[in-house]
């Protein structure tokens, strides 16, 4: 029966080409607009390290005296002392202190002009914890952290730029005024969003140079910037003894029991600091969120993108109303034909399914055109100067979703007109013939 309905539907669609084209186009435009924006939302709220994100946690404590500013959430960063205390305790499976700063870099004796780059200061666990891929060499060790070793890891991009993509492990890089030895070169690595950096533009690139936390503090002192301060620092750029938050801590906790234990440790630390008078708040301002919860709390999808998704959805609804109206007109115009079929013994159900098949076919055609429009829309987004432009590609999920949405939407739109058509009273129509 399905084949026969399909044949009937094709004939009916061919009969009035302009109307068919109009319906297909309306659905396609609606689908194209909504799928383009939904794909962007889908991509932007994706998991940056699937498989690992559930064991990565972002601890927060609140060193600020709330008498100075009213806030209920701790800052997305810590002061130096809290971070160092928590990191030194080594209570998690892995832990890394992280911060970044701008720095001048050059290759000594190369004749190349110096570059202004950004340097990530962190500790040894950073690389295994975030599964950072290496092309040459490896990260540094905890011992090298401890003795402030003058070593660095560079990105594939920087390696291409400075060393033409060769294995540069063992080469020297002059970071500000200090020579450091390159111990590792990353493979192209662009986690999106840039999850470990809570202040970054969400979809920007990683830092160019990675160096041990202790050594980079020695090297680049004076150039670190604070997220915020509640007292003006005594020495500019030296934030170690300042009332500023500027470093952040990531921990890996492999089991729920460890998460609970770490939560208790964190709360205990805050209470202890409160008792000592350094914190004004205790465990009530302590947070331990896993990566995805933290990203959601931080709000990964830009306001403009969400607004566009809303707008596109409203637009799709308008297109659907349009399709319902046109389908109704199309089906009821064939009332005579339907009357004859009913008189010849077709059940209401048969008429209903015939109409739905036709609606579904329109949906499928709309889906194909909508898919092309979605590809065009994403191509347009890739050409925009936004930091998530490189992400805008259609993945399999969204590809299938496009057709599912198109067919579902057109079936939904066909429901009322098909119901109407199946209610056509045969005798009236036959009399009119």
């Amino acid at each position: 029966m399905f084949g026969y309905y399909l044949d009937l539907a094709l004939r009916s669609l061919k009969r009035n080409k302009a109307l068919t084209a109009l319906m297909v186009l309306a659905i396609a435009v609606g689908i194209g607009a909504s799928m383009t924006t939904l794909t962007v939302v889908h991509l932007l709220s994706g998991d940056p390290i699937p498989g690992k994100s559930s064991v990565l946690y972002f601890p927060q404590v609140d060193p600020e005296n709330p008498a100075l500013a009213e806030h209920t959430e701790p800052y997305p960063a810590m002061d130096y002392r809290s971070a160092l205390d928590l990191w030194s305790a080594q209570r998690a499976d892995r832990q890394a202190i992280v911060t970044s700063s701008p720095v001048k870099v050059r290759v000594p004796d190369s004749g190349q002009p110096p570059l202004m780059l950004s340097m990530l200061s962190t500790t040894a666990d950073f690389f295994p914890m975030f599964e950072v891929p290496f092309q040459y060499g490896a990260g540094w060790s905890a011992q090298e952290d401890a003795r402030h070793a003058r070593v660095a890891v560079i990105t594939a991009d920087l390696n291409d730029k400075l060393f033409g993509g060769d294995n540069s492990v063992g080469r020297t890089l002059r970071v500000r005024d200090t020579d450091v030895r390159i111990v590792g070169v990353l493979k192209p690595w662009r986690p999106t969003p840039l999850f470990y950096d809570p202040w970054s533009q969400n979809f920007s690139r990683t830092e160019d140079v990675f160096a041990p936390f202790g050594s980079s503090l020695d090297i680049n002192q004076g150039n670190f910037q604070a997220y915020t301060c509640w007292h003006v620092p005594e020495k500019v750029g030296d934030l170690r003894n300042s009332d500023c938050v500027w470093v952040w801590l990531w921990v890996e906790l492999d089991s729920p029991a460890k998460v609970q234990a770490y939560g208790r440790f964190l709360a205990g630390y805050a209470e202890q600091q409160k008792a000592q008078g350094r914190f004004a708040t205790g465990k009530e301002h302590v947070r331990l969120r896993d990566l995805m919860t933290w990203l959601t709390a931080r709000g990964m999808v830009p306001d403009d993108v969400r607004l566009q998704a809303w707008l596109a959805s409203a637009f799709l609804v308008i297109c659907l109303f349009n399709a319902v109206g046109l389908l109704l007109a199309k089906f009821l115009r064939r009332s005579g034909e339907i009357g004859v079929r009913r008189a010849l013994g077709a059940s209401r159900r048969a008429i209903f399914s015939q109409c739905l098949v036709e609606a579904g076919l329109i949906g499928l055609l709309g889906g194909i055109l909508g898919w092309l429009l979605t590809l065009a829309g994403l191509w347009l987004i890739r050409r925009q100067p936004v930091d998530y432009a490189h992400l805008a590609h259609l993945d399999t999920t969204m590809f299938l979703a496009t057709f599912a949405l198109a067919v579902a939407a057109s079936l939904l739109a066909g429901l009322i007109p098909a119901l109407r058509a199946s209610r056509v009273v045969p005798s009236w129509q036959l009399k009119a013939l």
Partner: protein
Amino acid sequence: MQIRPILAALRRHRLATLLISLEVALACAVLCNACFLVAQRWELIQTRSGVDESSLAMVMVHGFEADQGKDLNARMLAGLRAVPGVQSVNLISQVPFGPQTGAAGISHDQGSFKRKIGVVDFVLAGPGTFQALGLELVAGRLPKVGDYSPATNFAPADAQVLVSRSLAEHAWPGESPLGKEFWCDKLHFRIIGVVDHFARARPRDWGSQAVEWTVFTPTLPGGSLAGTYLLRAKPQDLPRVLRDARNAVAKIAPDVVLDQENSRTLVDLRASYFKADRIMIDLLIGVIATMLCVTALGIVGLASFWVGQRQKQIGVRRALGATRGDILRYFQTENFLIVSFGIALGMVLAFGLNLLLMSHYELPRLPLYYLPVGALALWGLGQLAVLAPALRAAAVPPVVATRSV
């Protein structure tokens, strides 16, 4: 024109009428809100900087040590002033739409933020910068030689400053701000003058009230005031002057790194700062246009269907003496009624949508005048869309009445 027979006919096509009305209602709601969003973004893009943007450019360098600042300034000022066509080169820490360097909370009381005024931008500026920017003084006086204080932090420890009128009215409403004092923690400031308009570096980030919360801080060159230079030239010379200046930096100070991204004219900096808003405006206009097209096509489709369905009735009416004009007006009135239902519902929806948007975004209430304008637009659209089918209906000859199908 009698409305009652039209209403009676519509009652027989309740579903189709309802659908088109709903479509118009949604279109009306989206149209009003989308236009409002466009207007909001447009207003943002028009943000007043208070400076002579078309004559100004910024040259920014990085990668020097704090103790080299003074020497670097001397070399850069001399070197850049030698570029042909330059009218002036002065020191500044930040310009409107460039990178933000000194935002900090200020307060009426010393050492605490209990009587907080707000977060303002401190713009450190050397001698002559005020005139180069083209700021307009509305009260008080310009900085004198003795007013320039040394700074090693984002602002001097104790300084004579000028504030924007907007900040003065916010902090000292109804009072003269001249001679007033304020603090940022231990740093102390005293107001000597008020400027008419002066936008902060990233006006979008701080809410519409705080766009001009700026403190013009006369500062001695060196220390925190180094590495960023304000170039002034005739607008027609500026692109060439900037290009020459950028090229000159490599010779003037081979050890520092020119900030390629931010060493641009203020016009360029403004354009890239508001680029996302411009894209949003284009997108919204695109959506509005496509949506109106789809709605119009829906009306055309349904009206054509009705005209086809009513061929015989039209023929009968014509045979009974109705003129072509009568038939035309019939369909036009019908459309007017359907669109009117839609608009009535659409106004409620528009307000609902506005409330929804307000709860998610920083957006004011939809001004009432958007509703009649939106209504007019949709009435016009409806009449335009129905014209072709209605003309076809009017062309049906009376003889149709006598034919069987």
